[in-house]
């Protein structure tokens, strides 16, 4: 059992990988909140609260859902668009910024239109993003980004992973499907309707 908590940064000049601090990825039906295992329904509710209480909630869709390369990708993209619409209806500052590929952007990225895994902090700083969700990003690239974000920004990170999840995010889902993304959108709407979405975030 790890004593390490995956909290909002800025954490360190070079923060550790959470897995090397003993954080273990969840089993099916579970997720992680700040590195601790929780039932997926609780993780849904916490993600909803984070989105609803954010000043600039943002979704970062990656190549696996941006390109129409199979039927599931298209369905996921539709579900992500719906989640974005739900967030936008609640908060007009919500953003939807793609990670279309992983090429380092030289000489300069345009942070208003894209995010890059090698220097994700530039897009987060520029847009003052305080809660973000990665979806459709290859796992290695997502972990790379999530750790850099934790190291240098105060952004709360959520990972909607199609594989085993991401311990370097503050909150992670695993085995993402279009249905799971739609369920998250439903949960955001439900928690919003309840009016109770205050969060208490620690920091590193």
């Amino acid at each position, binding site marked *: 059992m790890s004593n390490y908590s995956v909290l909002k940064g800025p954490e360190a000049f*070079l923060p*550790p*990988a*959470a*897995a*090397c601090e003993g954080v*273990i*990825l969840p089993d099916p039906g579970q997720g992680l909140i700040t590195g601790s295992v929780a039932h997926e329904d609780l993780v849904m509710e916490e993600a909803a609260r984070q989105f609803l209480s954010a000043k600039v909630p943002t979704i970062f869709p990656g*190549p696996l859902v941006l390109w129409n390369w199979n039927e599931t990708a298209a369905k996921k993209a539709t579900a992500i668009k719906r989640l974005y619409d739900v967030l936008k209806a609640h908060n007009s500052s919500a953003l939807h910024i793609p990670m279309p*590929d*992983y*090429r*380092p952007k*030289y000489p300069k990225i345009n942070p208003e239109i894209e995010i890059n895994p*090698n*220097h994700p902090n530039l897009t987060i700083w520029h847009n003052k993003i305080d809660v973000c969700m990665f979806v459709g990003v*290859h*796992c*290695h*690239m997502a*972990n*790379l980004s999530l*750790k*850099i974000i934790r*190291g*240098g920004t105060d952004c709360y990170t959520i990972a909607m992973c199609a*594989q*085993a*999840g991401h*311990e*370097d995010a503050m909150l992670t889902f695993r085995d993402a499907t279009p249905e799971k993304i739609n369920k998250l959108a439903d949960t955001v709407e439900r928690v919003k309707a309840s009016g109770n979405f205050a969060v208490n975030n620690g920091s590193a």
Partner: protein
Amino acid sequence: MDSKSLIGTFNKKGQKIVDSDYLFYEAPRERFFMTGSEVVREAIRRASVDVSISYPITPQSEAAAMVGDLWVEGYVGEYFRGENEFAVMSECAGASFGGARVFTTTSGPGTLRAYENFPMWVGSRLPIMLNMMVRGVNSPLSIQPDTLEIGLIIDTGMLIWHAESAQDFFDYLLKGFMVAEEPDVHLPIAICIDGFFVSHTKDDVYIPSADLSLPPYNPYRNPMPCMDMEVPPVRMMRDPFVMKSNYISYATQASWQQETRAACERSRKHTIRLLGGLIEEENTDAEILIISSGTAVAQGREAARLLSEEGIKIGIVKIKTIRPFPYEEVRQATKNAKIIFVPEFNVAGWMAREIKAAIPDNHRVIAGPHVAGGMTMPPEVIVEEIKKVLAQKKETLHV
């Protein structure tokens, strides 16, 4: 296509593709008496390997040639000989980048000639299986067993498992593919055996039917996209990240390395399930322990038996995985020990260093006995070492 959807179907060789757990734990097994090289042939026959590339160096030559036979028989998709070991490992990378399940073998100086590729495989998250039949690497040249070679690859970032016996070897080869290819791991894996002692010695091995095969590798679960000159790591290797001197480049490079180490850590969960733990323990309530990996464990076990006849109780800890190293397991297993012997088939004593780094009060660790260069380690040598130390410390022990 999802590999699991192929379970129950038949591959082009007519083998039934079965769930890996069924192959490992439920399928009936038959007893065979075979060498380690023959074990490679029978494991790879059941492993749905797409590509194997070889280069001859003793003692792995025979195993590599037998995999060539499998290609002739239709069990392996592609097989060819590389120009040298560096070329072999580079070609393996190309095949793995392209989405193939890849297997190769090497030994001793061949491992070192190929060395540059291993951290590259890791950074590129290529789940290549490398069978290392370890032997001497230094001058004067020796083709005989020596485990120094394992110590030299410890920090490449690869998963490293060390088999004690032919049975371990067969099981590790097949289970290694499953762990290495998990999307949260997705790293190369070195399955090591002690050259000649395991590769050329016949032993009992229980293996399932050759009519069964592992599910094929599913490259769509890769945590990295397929190779593309514009996409990292290739793009990074050819321009900005190695050429630029700025914080972003450094931070990305460092974070990238951390992620590969994290992937190795994640393999613990899968490995513990498939291997039944990262270590095996026998009588670890004893005050005297022998800890090692590979065939040094077998010799240690026999030494413990000899000492038990004299009323001296010895515990045994067998380390199965060198990377990830079973730090917590070793700490727990050694909590009662007053003296810990670490016999090794190399002069460097890398296993003793690992154990010293893992446990409190590491003055308890006796780094030895050591043999090298092809020497055997008779159990009597371990017994003699233990008795020598006990004679010095008998006032503090209850043996």
